[in-house]
């Protein structure tokens, strides 16, 4: 293309973008690419003062993303997407990645790698004005590059060091593991359909012969499956495809994928109405899919992180568990929701509150009794984490959900040994026994349901509410057996005749077949994953095992399901007792965000997950060096879910406006915003963090021990709304906090270092009224909305 044609096309596209661009908020430039820049910025050109040569040394940055090493680096950055097309990688290996292709002119070539606009920002307006002979002025100025632009990318990145210097590489076997997480038993009981997360497939097992009969490819990271009423179709939720696979059972093929909400988990087929319920865990909703037309017809709001769903007695209602607790007033005990859906009315019939519980995962109906069972944890998030014995950090058990909505919670732990990570529940067809899998304990508890009910009903109403949920010695009254199974058991189901129970062992690619008479493992069926155990797999096992915590009280997953968060704040011993509650942060995309923890005191993940984790969390000796390598690498590869707020084309117009707010240097009243008060000063780079410990100017009273002259105990109420009470008068109470990354911040609630903000909006509207967390008090409502829209797209 000749320079003239290229310029014309640039101007046309720039004009087109400008035409659809914002009005009233100013116009936004698009990225034109270095070919346009070089028309002037070449030796002898009209803008020869700015040579391109240094930039051209970066021209191979994009091409480097095609290497095998880049795949491994991306994996360690929670990215399994092609690096050459992933926004996070492109931020430093090309230009214009944040805005996306919608904001690229036709002249822009991504394969030119790092270009002028990587540092100077989109140049279309600059080009337009220069071509038009406009006098140099504010509008024609593009951003001046600075050293900080270089630093934003040229930082030490552990993901790169691990691959390029320490030799880490994804191994073929890493992609070949099955990782079964759930199973559905065919209505005739002859076959098991085992949902395998890692292989993106459903493995079909001949139940009688114990052999693998086939494998069906489905969407990415399938999680749950349910049969249609006639058994002809199998519906599989795909957690990272945000879809529901429809499998024709007769042919063993996927015949359709139905789009659903974010990170779908549980699936239920309504036998009467023909609807398919899909729980959108990442969006706190349930999609009702027309079973015939296979289109989403309705979406209902659920609790936080809906996880599993089961049909209640009578078939009219479905019960849905929530993996994360509700947003509650700060420092209140957590509570979680069991949502009851009226399948006839297609409405939420009831929201049952389960006090002081979180991580409600499995749910099952008890045949012959009008009640449901749910698995749950009771995390002691408000108690200083100084002890692990006697259930001081997490207790684990089940909830008995009665028809009127009352929930009796009872523990499966013992005083000296926990039942870590209760995952799934299955009840025998005769309703006499229930299985609960302990993902962190590699064990299954067999519950005698009649004895369970008896154990609960022996207590008074007050005791059932206040005492029974705290007791660690009741399990022996109703636990008939504890059956050791494979590594990381998750889904469980009974055969239709009740003779056998099946438990999938996620991390050794097997199914344990348990004799329901003797409660012994009768057979272990291997699903065909690699026999070799790679370092990543070893790390995955360590991550999911409670063997690494004193008393087997918890695993890493106990607080980080799917590598994410449990929505709680914790009082960690290292920074003193009572004060400094810190929000539990996601593990996704954290490898390159050192320092770690909210206080930024851990320089590496190896330090955080090694010595510090051992001393202040697990209390056992730290991982051995090779184990630590493995678990850190596994953690770093926990995959980032797709962002539903961001289209393939990039930012929408409101999001682009929000980006302008995010990067603004001038307030609405025309004053220059000090650099330390700009969002992008701290939140910059590919992951939107400067990786610095920054003074936290909106330190709240509970962020530091209160120093009172008199030794009076005071009431919380004396401080009114704690969210707007600050220690402004005393710099001694100003803490330094790590600047968190903002990738997928949309599903990271609660927010802020102490988890005080349940929504993004409240970060500013409630907790930044005096501009201590950036200059935001002058923003209009629309600007707030735009800013939030942009942040959700990150």
């Amino acid at each position, binding site marked *: 293309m000749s320079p003239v044609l290229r310029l014309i096309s640039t101007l046309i596209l720039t004009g087109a973008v400008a035409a659809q661009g914002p009005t009233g908020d100013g116009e936004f430039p698009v990225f034109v690419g270095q070919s346009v820049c070089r028309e002037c910025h070449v030796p002898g050109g009209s803008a020869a003062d700015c040579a391109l040569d240094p930039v051209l040394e970066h021209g191979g940055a994009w091409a480097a993303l095609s290497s095998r090493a880049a795949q491994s680096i991306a994996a360690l950055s929670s990215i399994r997407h092609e690096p050459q097309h992933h926004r996070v990688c492109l931020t430093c290996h090309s230009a214009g990645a944040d805005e996306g292709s919608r904001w690229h002119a036709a002249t822009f070539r991504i394969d030119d790698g790092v270009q002028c606009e990587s540092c100077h920002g989109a140049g279309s307006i600059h080009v337009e004005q220069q071509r038009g002979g406009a006098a140099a002025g504010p509008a024609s100025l593009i951003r001046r590059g600075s050293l900080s632009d270089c630093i934003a990318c040229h930082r030490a990145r552990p993901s790169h060091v691990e691959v390029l210097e320490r030799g880490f590489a994804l191994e073929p076997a890493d992609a070949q593991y099955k990782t079964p997480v759930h199973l559905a038993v065919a209505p005739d009981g002859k076959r098991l359909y085992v949902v395998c997360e890692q292989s993106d497939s459903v493995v079909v097992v001949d139940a009688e012969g114990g052999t693998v009969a086939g494998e069906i490819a489905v969407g990415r990271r399938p999680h749950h499956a349910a049969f249609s009423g006639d058994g002809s179709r199998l519906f599989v939720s795909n957690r990272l495809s945000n879809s529901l696979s429809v499998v024709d059972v007769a042919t063993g093929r996927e015949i359709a994928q139905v789009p659903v909400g974010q990170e779908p988990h549980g699936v239920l087929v309504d036998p009467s109405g023909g609807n398919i319920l899909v729980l959108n865990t990442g969006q706190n909703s349930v999609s009702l899919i027309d079973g015939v037309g296979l289109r989403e017809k309705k979406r209902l709001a659920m609790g936080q992180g809906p996880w599993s769903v089961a049909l209640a007695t009578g078939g009219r209602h479905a019960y849905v568990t929530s993996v994360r607790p509700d947003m509650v007033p700060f*420092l209140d*005990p957590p509570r979680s929701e069991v949502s009851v859906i009226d399948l006839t009315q297609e409405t939420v019939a009831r929201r049952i509150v389960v006090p*002081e519980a979180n991580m409600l995962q499995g749910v099952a109906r008890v045949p012959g009794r009008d009640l449901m069972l749910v698995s749950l944890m*009771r*995390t*002691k*998030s*408000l*108690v*200083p984490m*100084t*002890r692990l*014995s*006697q*259930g*001081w950090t997490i*207790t684990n058990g089940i909830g008995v959900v009665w028809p009127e909505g009352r929930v009796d919670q009872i*523990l499966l*732990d*013992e*005083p*000296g*040994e926990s039942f870590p990570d209760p995952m799934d529940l299955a009840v025998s067809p005769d309703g006499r026994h229930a299985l609960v899998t302990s993902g962190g304990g590699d064990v299954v508890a067999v519950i005698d349901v009649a004895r369970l009910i008896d154990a609960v009903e022996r207590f008074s109403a007050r*005791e059932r509410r*206040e*005492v029974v949920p*705290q*007791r*660690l*010695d009741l399990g*022996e009254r109703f636990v008939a057996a504890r059956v050791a199974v494979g590594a990381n058991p998750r889904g469980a189901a009974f055969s239709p005749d009740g003779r056998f129970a099946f438990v999938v062992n996620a991390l050794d690619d097997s199914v344990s077949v348990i004799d329901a008479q003797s409660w012994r493992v009768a057979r272990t069926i291997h699903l065909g994953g690699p026999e070799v155990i790679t370092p990543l797999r070893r790390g995955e096992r360590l991550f999911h095992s409670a*063997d690494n915590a*004193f*008393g087997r009280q918890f695993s890493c997953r106990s607080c980080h399901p799917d590598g994410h968060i449990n929505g709680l704040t914790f*009082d960690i*011993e290292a920074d*003193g*007792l*009572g*004060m400094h*509650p810190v929000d539990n942060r996601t593990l996704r995309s954290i490898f390159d965000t050192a320092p770690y923890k909210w206080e930024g005191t851990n320089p590496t993940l190896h330090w955080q997950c090694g*010595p*510090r984790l*051992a*001393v*202040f969390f*697990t*209390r*056992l*000796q*730290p991982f051995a060096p090779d184990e630590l390598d493995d678990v850190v690498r596994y953690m770093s590869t926990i995959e980032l879910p797709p962002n539903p707020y961001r289209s393939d084309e990039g930012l929408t117009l409101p999001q682009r406006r929000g980006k302008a707010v995010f990067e603004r240097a001038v307030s609405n009243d025309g004053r220059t915003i000090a650099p330390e008060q700009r969002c992008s000063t701290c939140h910059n780079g590919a992951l939107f963090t400067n990786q610095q410990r920054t003074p936290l100017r909106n330190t709240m009273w509970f962020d530091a*021990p*209160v*120093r*009172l002259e008199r*030794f009076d*105990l*005071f*009431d*919380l109420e004396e401080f009114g709304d704690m969210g707007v009470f600050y220690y402004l008068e005393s710099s001694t109470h100003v803490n330094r906090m790590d600047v968190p990354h903002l990738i997928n911040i949309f599903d990271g609630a609660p927010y802020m270092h102490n988890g005080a903000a349940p929504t993004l909006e409240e970060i500013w509207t409630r907790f930044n009224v005096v501009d201590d967390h950036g200059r935001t008090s002058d923003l209009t409502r629309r600007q707030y909305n735009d800013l939030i829209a942009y942040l959700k797209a990150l």
Partner: protein
Amino acid sequence: MASREQHQLAEAETEFVGNVMHSMTHRSRWTHSRIAGSMLPNGATFFARLCERKRASMFLFVLCTAGSLDAASTEGIGVAARSEGGVVPAIVVAQVQRITDPGEAGAPAAAAQSGIERSRLLLLRFEEGTTVSENLTPGFVRAGRPEVSFDGRRVLFVGQRSTDKASGVWEIDLVARETRHVVSSKRGCVAATYLSRLFTLHAPQPWAQIAYIERDEAGIPALYTCRIDGSDVRRISYGVGGVEGVVALQNGRLLVGMETSREQSPTDPDAAAAVALFALNPDGTDLMAFTRDMDRGVRRIPQGETSDGWVVFLETALAREEKGAAILAVRRANSFAAPRALLKTPDGTFRCATPWGTSHLVVTYRPWGKGTFFGLFDFNMESGDFRPLHHDPDWDAVGAAVIVERAAPPGYSSVVRDDAPFGQLYCLDAYMTGLARESGTDAARIESVRVLVAERSQRGVWPTERRLGEVPVAEDGSFFLEVPARVPLRLETVGEGGGTLRAMRNWFWVMPGERRGCIGCHEDRALSPPNRHVKALYHEPRRLTLDGDNPRVPEARPEVDLP
């Protein structure tokens, strides 16, 4: 006892003794007696008899409660002692030479404990129809309390080379047959055990260590740890009572017997005190009662843990008139449940019951009576089989350790800081007692909590108690304070007017930098804490210091048990 039963027992005794004599003479198969049902409760028909004949064995034989002797033969007992789990591995036996016939129950045991001379470790190997013994400690005048390392290759023991030197801790490499000195003691070591590894933030990597019991300046047996090379000695117990027996549990904690009371004769250093089981971390933190019934007037001495989690301990009555002993076990996962009685006898005593494998104990037992002595037995916890393994009329077998590899407990990571002279205490709700919170009009309002510190000058002298201070209790029942580390402490809840509402009967301590939490006062160990952010933690803790001006507390026995 009915005459018919007596006749049967007499016949059985004769048969048994005859078998023993025959086997000893001809080194052929022995017959053993079997306990039909491992527990022989008081009052049951129980028969034990000592056979004292020329070179004859003096073995316990136990008859079943029904009075009949099951004399089923067992191949190779004493030659290659077989059990349901297979051949008994080699055993290290601690023996005390019998100088005179003590004629009094427990005399050899007491002598060994107090450091009697002429004790040794004997290695027993059961090979091809014969028992091979080897003195592992020929250069020692005293050697005892053997403990086998987790890899089964080394033996830790307490030994003394000469009478003019105090006993120390030694280690034998069983492969190289080399003995090395681990740690010395001015006042004499009593027992030692291998520990899980310890780690702190200031250490590059976890280190192996041992624990041992040594008398402190006041003569009280206290618990110490050191690295396996003998360096970095740390005292980790600071109770008023002495420590009697220590073993490492599979979860990495230590189980100790600790004197809890000397009410019977507080100033008599030789008087037996009640000993209860406590567990603590290898850095001395988080001392907790291990079993219920702490003050039943018994002595409970820890023995070890089976590979499937049963913690074994000996129990003897404090009262001299109550002879007899029992081997009990509780599951570590639920140690506050009622113990399971494995063996119980009113007519003899046990000195050790060392677990090995999932269901076996190596037991040293001696029936009461003149001329009796301690022999070595294998007890199968599942079948109840109680089989003789070895005896020597000239030596009492007072301790034993089985040479078998076992899983090392997980290492422990410590927050203890040597540069921190204080530890912290916080309580979530002082109104929480037992399994529930006291409430209603009957619940006396707790105004404050009083902290008492004990100063003990020498063994047998009741400690002086001083008042360290009082801190207010928040209306939600919580309190938060900072106290000197490494001193015996006791708490009392105080009501209106300063009256004591509840008082701990036993002492505890905090280690430097430890942040010790409790749910309530006299909370049940089966209770997990409620998830509450308590008011006392809204501010920094009140620091109580020990500066010499702390007022002495008039001697008054605590009346309310608050373990």
